C-alpha cells in the first residue's frame, strides 16, 4: 500500500505537467503509468503547439478560432482558459529548455496551421511532441517525483454512494507488470487521470497500441459521465499502410493535396475555396474520402500529398522527420515523389467530463489531456490545440488537486437542473446488464472510510486478476479486439449512417458476450502482457459502445460528426453535449447545454466555412 497526496495516472504530456504543478504546489506526488513516461504517445505529436505569442495576435483570436473549429460545441470558459494560458505555458517549456525551432532573431518560430487565423503554431521540427514529452520528463527527474512505471492501473477506488456527484475517489489499484503484484495507491487529495487517447477502438489509427482509453472507461464505470464521445477526429493525412501520421505541418508549410487526376481538389472541387489544404481536419478528411468514393482516388484508396516544391532545404529544416516516416513506413522518398495519404482515426475530442480545472463530478477525481473533455475541442479539434491543452489543464488540475484555490468553475459537471434526458433505440441490449458487480459502479463499495474503499477495491481487483488467470479456455482477447476494431472502422467512421451504427451496436454486444468467456493464455505473473491486454480490451468495449451510442444520438452534422440522414448543423436542437453515464451496468444517455458565454463575450455560432 502506497500513500501520497496526489496520484497521477499516466505520464504523457498531461500527466507530467500535472505532477510538476502538484509538486510545486507542495503536494507529495506519485505517477503511476503503464508505460515508462518517455514511451507515452505524446512523443508522437509532430506539428506543434498553438499559442498567441506575437504582436498582432491575441488569445481572443485564438479562442475565436478554437470555438469556430469546434463548430461551437466547446465550452467557452475552457477554450478561453486554454488560449489565455497557452502562451505562458509555452514560454515555460522554453525556459525548461525545450528545443523549439527558431527564427533568425533567435525567438521561437511559429507556423500556420489548419483553421487558424494567425500563424501561431510553435513547433520543434516535426517532432514537437517528442521534445515536449522529454522536456517535461526531465523536469520530473529534476524534481525527484516518484514514478511507478510499468504499473497498470486497473481501477479507481471510488466510494459507492448512489449519486455519482456524492462519490469520492480515494486512490487507485494498480498491477505491477514486472511482478504481477496488485497494489493499492491511496491519494489523500486527489487522483488525476491522464491516460491519453483511445484510438485502439479503430484499426486504422495514428494512436499507439497503448492508447486503449483506460482512463475514460475506468472513470465511466465509476459513474463519471463521458462527454461527446461520438466526436472522433479523423486526420486527413495518415500513411495508408500503417496509419502513421504525416503532420499537418506539411500542409502548413505549403504541401498540396492531389487526386488521381492531378487536380488540387480542395480548391478545384470546392471543398474549401479559401483555405484549401489548410481547412479544418474534418473538412479535408471528408473531401479526401469523397474524392476516393467518387473514383478519383489513387488505387481507389488514397490521395497524394506533395511537398516537393517546398525545396529540400526547407523540408530538411522543418519537416525532416516526415521524410524519415515516409521512407521507413511507406517506402516513399518525400523529396522525390508525393506521399500517399488517407484519413485515419486520430483524436478523441470527447472524454471524461470535467470543468475547466480538470475536476470531475466525483470528489477528488480529475482528468486531463486527451482522456478528458473540458470541453475545449467541441466537435473538432484544431491541429496544435491538444498539446497546449495538456500543459494548461495539466497545470491547472495539478494545482487544484494539491488544494490550491483557483476560484469557482464556470463549466458545470455532473447532472444538474439543466440536464436533459436522452434516448436512442438500440437494436440490442446495451452495457452489461448481467454484471453482478455491484449495483451502481464497479469502482468501490458502500463503505465510509477512505481506507475501506481502497481496501475493497484492492480485493476486488485482485480477484479479477486471479479469475482471469485461472481460466484456461474460452475466447482470447485478440479476437474480441479485432472484431471491435473491424466494426468500428466499417460502421462508425467518417461517414455515419443509422443502419451501420446499429450494426456496430450489435457487433459490440456480441463482442461483450464473448468477453464473458475470455481467458488469459499466459499463466505467468512475470510481465504478463496477455493479461493486461485482456483488461484493456474490456475498456475498449465500453469505449466503442459510448462512441456509437453518442453517434446514434446526435442527429445532425457538426464538426467531425457526419450523418447521412442529417446533412446540416442543427443549432436549435443540438447545441448541447451528449453525455453517457454508466448506470446499473448500462449506458444512460443525457444532454447538457454548451456554455458559449465567455470572458470575451458570447460566441455566436456562425457558419463554418474555410
Amino acid at each position: 500500500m502506497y500513500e501520497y497526496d496526489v496520484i497521477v495516472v499516466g505520464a504523457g504530456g498531461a500527466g507530467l505537467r500535472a505532477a510538476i504543478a502538484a509538486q510545486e504546489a507542495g503536494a507529495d506526488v506519485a505517477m503511476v503509468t503503464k508505460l515508462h513516461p518517455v514511451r507515452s504517445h505524446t512523443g508522437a505529436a509532430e506539428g506543434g503547439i498553438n499559442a498567441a505569442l506575437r504582436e498582432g495576435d491575441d488569445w481572443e483570436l485564438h479562442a475565436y478560432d478554437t470555438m469556430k473549429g469546434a463548430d461551437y460545441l466547446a465550452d467557452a470558459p475552457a477554450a478561453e482558459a486554454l488560449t489565455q494560458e497557452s502562451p505562458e505555458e509555452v514560454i515555460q517549456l522554453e525556459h525548461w529548455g525545450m528545443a523549439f525551432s527558431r527564427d533568425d532573431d533567435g525567438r521561437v518560430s511559429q507556423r500556420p496551421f489548419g483553421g487558424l487565423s494567425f500563424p501561431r503554431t510553435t513547433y520543434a521540427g516535426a517532432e514537437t511532441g517528442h521534445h515536449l514529452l522529454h522536456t517535461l520528463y526531465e523536469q520530473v527527474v529534476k524534481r525527484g517525483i516518484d514514478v511507478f512505471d510499468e504499473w497498470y492501473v486497473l481501477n479507481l477506488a471510488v466510494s459507492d454512494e448512489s449519486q455519482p456527484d456524492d462519490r469520492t475517489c480515494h486512490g487507485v489499484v494498480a498491477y505491477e507488470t514486472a511482478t504481477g503484484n496488485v497494489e493499492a495507491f491511496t491519494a489523500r487529495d486527489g487522483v488525476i487521470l491522464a491516460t491519453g487517447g483511445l484510438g485502439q477502438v479503430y484499426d486504422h489509427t495514428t494512436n499507439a497500441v497503448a492508447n486503449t482509453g483506460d482512463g475514460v472507461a475506468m472513470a465511466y464505470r465509476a459513474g463519471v459521465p463521458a462527454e461527446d464521445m461520438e466526436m472522433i477526429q479523423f486526420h486527413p493525412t495518415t500513411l495508408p499502410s500503417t496509419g502513421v501520421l504525416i503532420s499537418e505541418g506539411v500542409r502548413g508549410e505549403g504541401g498540396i493535396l492531389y487526386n488521381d487526376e492531378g487536380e488540387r481538389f480542395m480548391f478545384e472541387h470546392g471543398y474549401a475555396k479559401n483555405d484549401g489544404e489548410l481547412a479544418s481536419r474534418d473538412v479535408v478528411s471528408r473531401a479526401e474520402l469523397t474524392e476516393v468514393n467518387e473514383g478519383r482516388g489513387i488505387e481507389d484508396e488514397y490521395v497524394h500529398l506533395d511537398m516537393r516544391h517546398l525545396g529540400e532545404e526547407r523540408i530538411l529544416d522543418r519537416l525532416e522527420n516526415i521524410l524519415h516516416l515516409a521512407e521507413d513506413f511507406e517506402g516513399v522518398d518525400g523529396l522525390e515523389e508525393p506521399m500517399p495519404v488517407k484519413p485515419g482515426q486520430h483524436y478523441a475530442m470527447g472524454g471524461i467530463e470535467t470543468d475547466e480545472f480538470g475536476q470531475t463530478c466525483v470528489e477528488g477525481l480529475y482528468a486531463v489531456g486527451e482522456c478528458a473533455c473540458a470541453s475545449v475541442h467541441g466537435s473538432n479539434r484544431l491541429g496544435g490545440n491538444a498539446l497546449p491543452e495538456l500543459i494548461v489543464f495539466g497545470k491547472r488540475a495539478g494545482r487544484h488537486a494539491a488544494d490550491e484555490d483557483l476560484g469557482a468553475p464556470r463549466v458545470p459537471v455532473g447532472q444538474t437542473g439543466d440536464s436533459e434526458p436522452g434516448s436512442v433505440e438500440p437494436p440490442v441490449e446495451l452495457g452489461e446488464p448481467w454484471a453482478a458487480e455491484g449495483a451502481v459502479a464497479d469502482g468501490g463499495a458502500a463503505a465510509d472510510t477512505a481506507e475501506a474503499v481502497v481496501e475493497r477495491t484492492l480485493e476486488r481487483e485482485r480477484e479479477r486478476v486471479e479469475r482471469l488467470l485461472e481460466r484456461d479456455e474460452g475466447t482470447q482477447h485478440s479476437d474480441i479486439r479485432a472484431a471491435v476494431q473491424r466494426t468500428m472502422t466499417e460502421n462508425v467512421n467518417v461517414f455515419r449512417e443509422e443502419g451501420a451504427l446499429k450494426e456496430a451496436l450489435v457487433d459490440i454486444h456480441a463482442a461483450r458476450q464473448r468477453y464473458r468467456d475470455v481467458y488469459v493464455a499466459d499463466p505467468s505473473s512475470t510481465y504478463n502482457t496477455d493479461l493486461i491486454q485482456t483488461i484493456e480490451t474490456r475498456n475498449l468495449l465500453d469505449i466503442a459502445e459510448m462512441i456509437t451510442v453518442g453517434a446514434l444520438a446526435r442527429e445532425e452534422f457538426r464538426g467531425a460528426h457526419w450523418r447521412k440522414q442529417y446533412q446540416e448543423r442543427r443549432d436549435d436542437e443540438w447545441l448541447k453535449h451528449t453525455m453517457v453515464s454508466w448506470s446499473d451496468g448500462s449506458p444512460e444517455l443525457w444532454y447538457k447545454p454548451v456554455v458559449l458565454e465567455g470572458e470575451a463575450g458570447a460566441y455566436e455560432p456562425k457558419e463554418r466555412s474555410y
Partner: protein
Amino acid sequence: MSQSYDRGLIEDFGRWREFSAGMWAWIFHKFTGWVLVGYLFTHVAVLSTALTSASADPATVAANQDLYTQTIRTLESLLVVRVLEVGLLAVAVFHILNGTRLLLVDLGIGLESQDRSFYASLILTGAIVVASVPTFLAGVSL
C-alpha cells in the same frame, strides 16, 4: 523483478561473427597493443641480459666476437625468431596505422569513413608485411 536471466559475457563473444568493423578494430588494436607491451618488456630483458654477458673486453667487441653480438646473431639465425619478427612487424604496423586512424577519429576527422579506414589499415598492414618478408628472412640459416 522476480528473477531475470543474465546471458553473461560468453554469449557476447559467441557473437563474434556479428561484430562490426569498429569492434574488430577495437579488438585488434587491443591485441596488438598488448603484444607490443609484451614485446617491449621482453626486448629490454633480452638486450640487458645479453649485455650483461657481453665482455668489456674491447678486442672481442671490435672483432664483433663479444657475447652480446653472438647471442643476437644466434637468435637471428633461427627461423622461428625471424617469423616471429615478421609477426611483430605486422602487429606494429597495424597498431600504428589503426592508432593513426584512432587519433584522427579523436580529432573528429573521418568519422563517416571509420569502417573504410579500418579496412584500409588492414590491407596496408598486409601489403607492408608481405613486401617486407624478403628483407626479414634475408640471410637466415636454416
